[in-house]
């Protein structure tokens, strides 16, 4: 939907690390503190909280109590890796409805102390007895279809991982900060064929936070608010069908509506959820940057680094930053706002004015993307 009167005024992130074993609230608190500092406001301004960490072990109001928040609005979001974007959509809806002016959205993970949360009962009973391949197996099966049907190669997907690593070298919060070569990508240990080690994220501890505000309050509080232009989500695409084309995802259901105000050509960068390079390619295709099946040649013909003609995951994405275990997609939003404000330092995309953020989460029984969500942000 096209969005009116909602801004993002601050973002914060922890470093993504496995060096320490702290509990989730510690990471969320640090990310939120960073977001408040970045917005230049005190926590008393925040009257709402949306929380999307998959493996949160307590109720959301308990977390709010721990953070010292007194709230008029609280929201739990459980859309897996789409939760970050969905939490911002929920906050934007509440702000437009007049329920509150300022909300914080939080997502993170602490893999040592909180390794798991609720599960899919179908995955537990009808998938895992056949090899328990986890997310990698589900993606691998669909990637193989794409490779067979459209001729997509591992080199093309590898370019996503390699380019993002180049971006991560300039991100001091990233987990991986050494170069990755195409040879290393191609020759890495197989996890679930055709997915190798560098197709997979390293699970880490960490969190991100974003402050969402009504335009009226944003103008009072912030010198450089970033505007939410449009946003959409789809859960359970083609769920009623049986023999679906598994390479097509829910992003295709809302893509034209998403770009109705700011076109694809006006987008200066894309921050796309990257549990695996293949889902970046799926988003590029299903959001209409190229025809279905042409994602591989789109990747071949563009420079995906922060200095390229189509920058993707300018902070390194989860493939290089690491994936906060069950930690939603707010790190992509944080990087988008950072870029639009011109605060990205050495990896700044020149004159970035509009950016796309895509998130996806959870697995259907035979489809690798259950929840798809996206939004467009703009500097005005």
């Amino acid at each position, binding site marked *: 939907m096209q969005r009116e009167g909602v801004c993002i005024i601050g973002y914060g992130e922890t470093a993504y690390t496995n060096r320490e074993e702290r509990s989730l609230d510690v990471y969320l608190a640090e990310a939120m503190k960073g977001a408040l500092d970045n917005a230049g406001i005190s926590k008393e301004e925040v009257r709402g909280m949306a929380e999307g960490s998959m493996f949160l072990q307590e109720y959301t109001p308990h977390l709010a109590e721990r953070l010292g928040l007194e709230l008029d609005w609280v929201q739990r979001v459980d859309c897996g890796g789409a939760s970050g974007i969905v939490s911002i959509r929920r906050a934007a809806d509440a702000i437009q409805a007049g329920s509150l002016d300022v909300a914080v959205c939080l997502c993170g993970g602490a893999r040592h102390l909180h390794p798991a949360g609720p599960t899919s*009962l*179908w995955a*537990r*009973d*009808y*998938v*895992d*007895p*056949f*090899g*328990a*391949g*986890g997310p*990698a*197996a589900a993606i*691998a*099966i*669909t990637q*193989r*279809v794409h490779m*067979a049907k459209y001729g997509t190669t591992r080199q093309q997907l590898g370019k996503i991982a390699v380019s993002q690593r180049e971006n991560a070298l300039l991100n001091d919060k990233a987990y991986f900060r050494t170069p990755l070569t195409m040879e290393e990508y191609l020759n890495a*240990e*197989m*996890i*679930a*064929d*055709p*997915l190798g080690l560098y197709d997979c994220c390293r699970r880490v501890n960490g969190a991100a936070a974003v402050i969402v505000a009504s335009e009226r309050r944003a103008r009072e509080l912030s010198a450089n608010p970033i505007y939410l232009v449009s946003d959409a989500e789809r859960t359970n695409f083609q*769920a*009623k069908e*049986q*023999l*679906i084309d*598994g390479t097509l995802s829910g992003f295709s259901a809302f893509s034209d509506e998403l770009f109705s105000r700011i076109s694809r050509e006006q987008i200066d960068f894309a921050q796309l959820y990257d549990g695996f390079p293949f889902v970046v390619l799926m988003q590029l295709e299903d959001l209409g940057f190229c025809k279905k099946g042409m994602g591989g040649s789109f990747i071949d013909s563009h420079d995906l680094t922060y200095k390229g003609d189509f920058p993707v995951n300018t902070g390194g994405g989860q493939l290089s930053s690491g994936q906060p275990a069950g930690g939603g997609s707010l790190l992509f939003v944080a990087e988008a706002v950072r870029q639009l404000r011109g605060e990205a330092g050495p990896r700044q995309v020149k004159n970035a004015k509009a950016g796309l953020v895509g998130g996806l989460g959870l697995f259907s*029984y*035979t489809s690798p993307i259950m929840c798809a969500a996206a939004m467009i942000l703009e500097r005005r």
Partner: protein
Amino acid sequence: MQAVKPKLPSMVELNDRTFWEGVQNEKFLLQRCSDCGRLQFPPGPVCRNCFGSHLFWEQACGRGTIYSFTAIHVPASPFFKQQIETSGRPIIQAFIDLEEQVRIVSEIVDCDPGELRLGARVSLMFQKIEGTDFKLPKFRVSG
């Protein structure tokens, strides 16, 4: 090496119990909706197409084709890790399109993943989980 115990499917719900008891009797059961006629799997409380609640069980013929597959080298569970170490072979997990026009997840046994092709014809068999008497419905490439 200490044997790691496998996780068996939960059979708390009647629909799940009916399906897995069918498997123990070497039958693969699908739900058919008596209102719209659609088949579905995994089992659920209603027809996911028309929301009808009159579902009955129908046995699948056991033939299908491979929509796609993966060879799992590094699984998420210790049980399968041990199985792969012992056998020295990855586990082939596949999406199988049954002749009844239903897509299911299963495992392909007795097969070299390098020889396997999309669209290959497969047939149903039943195999006990190692160390248990519990059978799982698996597939092998038909001749």
